[in-house]
């Protein structure tokens, strides 16, 4: 049985550009799919097709068990969309915006009113509820936009780059909101160009480039494709590089003979693929020390989704100016921990 969001062979061309070039997706009910890709990869086009805003040239799409092409009106009753820009009326108050959306979802006026109050409370907008949205900060607008998408508690949600342009604090807040939502059983398709975001929020990730899904899997599976962890050493004295290389080669997963150590002469940086984590790192430090090799820097590096992305596409995720500072190895590990705790929370809900 197909998932809550299912697409098969979606093609959409704009003139010469194949924005979607045969996209297949399958998102099981209650899970989050992260659609990851650079600007212009086709993420937004995919969302627009799945939310009935755009008719594909060919292909099939089913959302919440309904055919997107044949029953668009019914699909619209079961979905919530939070687009790339906060789609709210600036001259209406937060409350008026939500009531309007509720009424357009065909809720009776009284219910729309009650629901608006409830959402304003939940999204921490009660104090600003009767101010025009023009006076809201970027984070508040985003929250209001998301609230509008949740008016009828749709079973399937689409979010197109929900945190683009938000500062780190607001991004974190929004992530928590999204995690709560998913814990409640909502199926979510999320597009992002922030690898960190996909890593934290998505159960499955589909990497999109040039209108095609070029890889899919869990964050861990994708990272495994890029190889395991590595130790990176920067030695102080260029003359000690050969000694350090021999020492590191002994710990390489590929065995001492094959070495597998990469050396960058000008930065004096040596990298070796390993298994054994922090324990091995401590051992390497002791060995280097006992041989009198002075080091400027050393670290255990796990592959980030950034590495995955570069490996897969041959270019970075942030083609354009809006790239956030990517998490280093430690942060990536932290994110993973977070994910686990969310999974546990979800179990608890069940």
């Amino acid at each position: 049985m197909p998932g809550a969001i299912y697409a098969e062979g979606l093609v959409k061309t704009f003139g010469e550009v194949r924005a979607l070039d045969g996209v297949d997706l399958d998102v099981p009910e209650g899970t989050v799919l992260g659609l990851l890709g650079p600007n212009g990869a086709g993420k937004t086009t995919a969302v627009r097709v799945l939310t009935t805003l755009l008719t594909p040239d060919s292909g099939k799409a089913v959302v919440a068990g309904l055919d997107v092409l044949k029953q668009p009106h019914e699909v619209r009753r079961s979905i919530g969309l939070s687009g790339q820009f906060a789609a709210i009326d600036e001259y209406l108050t937060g409350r008026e915006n939500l009531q309007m959306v509720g009424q357009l979802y065909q809720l009776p006026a009284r219910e729309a009113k009650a629901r608006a109050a409830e959402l304003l409370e939940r999204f921490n907008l009660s104090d600003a509820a009767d101010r025009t949205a023009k006076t809201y900060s970027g984070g508040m607008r985003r929250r209001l936009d998301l609230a509008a998408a949740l008016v009828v508690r749709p079973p399937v949600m689409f979010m197109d780059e929900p945190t683009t342009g938000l500062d780190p604090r607001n991004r974190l807040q929004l992530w928590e909101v999204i995690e709560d939502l998913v814990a409640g059983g909502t199926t979510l398709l999320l597009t992002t160009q922030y690898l960190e975001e996909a890593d934290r929020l998505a159960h499955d990730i589909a990497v999109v480039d040039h209108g095609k899904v070029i890889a899919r899997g869990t964050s861990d599976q994708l990272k495994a494709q890029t190889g395991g962890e590595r130790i990176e050493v920067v030695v102080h004295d260029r003359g000690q590089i050969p000694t350090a290389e021999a020492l590191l080669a002994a710990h390489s997963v590929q065995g001492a003979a094959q070495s597998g150590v990469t050396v960058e002469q000008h930065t004096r940086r040596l990298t070796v693929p390993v298994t054994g984590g922090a324990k091995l790192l401590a051992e390497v430090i002791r060995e280097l020390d006992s041989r009198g090799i002075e080091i400027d820097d050393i670290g255990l590096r796990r592959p980030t989704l950034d590495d995955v992305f570069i490996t897969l596409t041959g270019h970075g995720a942030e083609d354009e100016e809006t790239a956030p500072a990517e998490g280093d190895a430690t942060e990536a590990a932290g994110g993973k921990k977070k994910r686990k705790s969310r999974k546990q929370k979800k179990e608890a809900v069940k």
Partner: protein
Amino acid sequence: MTATSTAPTAPRPAAPAGGGLRQSVTDSLTMAKRNLIRMVRIPEVVIFGLFQPIMFVVLFSYVFGGSINLPGAGLDPGLYREFLMAGIFAQTVTFATAGAGAGIAEDMHKGLIDRFRSLPMARGAVLTGRTIADLVQTALTLIVLAVVAALVGWRTHENGLKVLAGFGLLLLLGYAFTWIGALIGLSVRTPEAATSGGLIWLFPLTFISNAFVPSQNMPTVLRHIAEWNPFSATVQACRELFGNLPPNYPVPDAWPMQHPAWASLIWSIAIILFFRTLAVRKYKSATA
């Protein structure tokens, strides 16, 4: 994965009880309300919308008034002033086109149209709601303008019903033109383009007409255009219904000038049907 147990139990939107038409009406009213709230919160738009027609009333009355030779009235500035007002009223209502266009273009630009299109609402309601709100604004503008016109000496010489019918034709014309504006708003990329795109063609349309000067004095080609101009029909109909034609004014032989009220009605309804169809079709495939 069996998430069904945790799936949201929602106030799920029910199918509209009264069917498509009832939903169209309620959705359109919801959208009209939204646009009217905006109007109250941005009163500048309404206020600036009044400046130009008031300026025209004063300029045309006093600057051109004494120099325009009205068939059947000569150079009487008082008679010209009465003759002029229907023209200014009609021009004012057509300027609502630009407002509707800019408003819809702004909604497109800000992603609101995407939100509306992803909601289970009636397809034409976003546009209908906007045009209804513009109609309310047009009506307010007309009231203010009529007061100013009365202050500079404009009077009606027919019974109240006929005068109301005249204003009714003006509002219908204005409403028809907002649908042209809606189509323009959906077709351009920015609100600024919608404003200029909504205004530019109105100048030849309203000047190659009987609005400010009698069409009889124009070169033959322009005279024919002026006499068949949908805009002229409404102006002529209002002059008759207000009793603002000079006593011996020779009415042109063209059919719309002989039967201006019917011509005005037919033109306006035809414009609504044609442009509403195009605009709603455009809306359905709109991309921001």
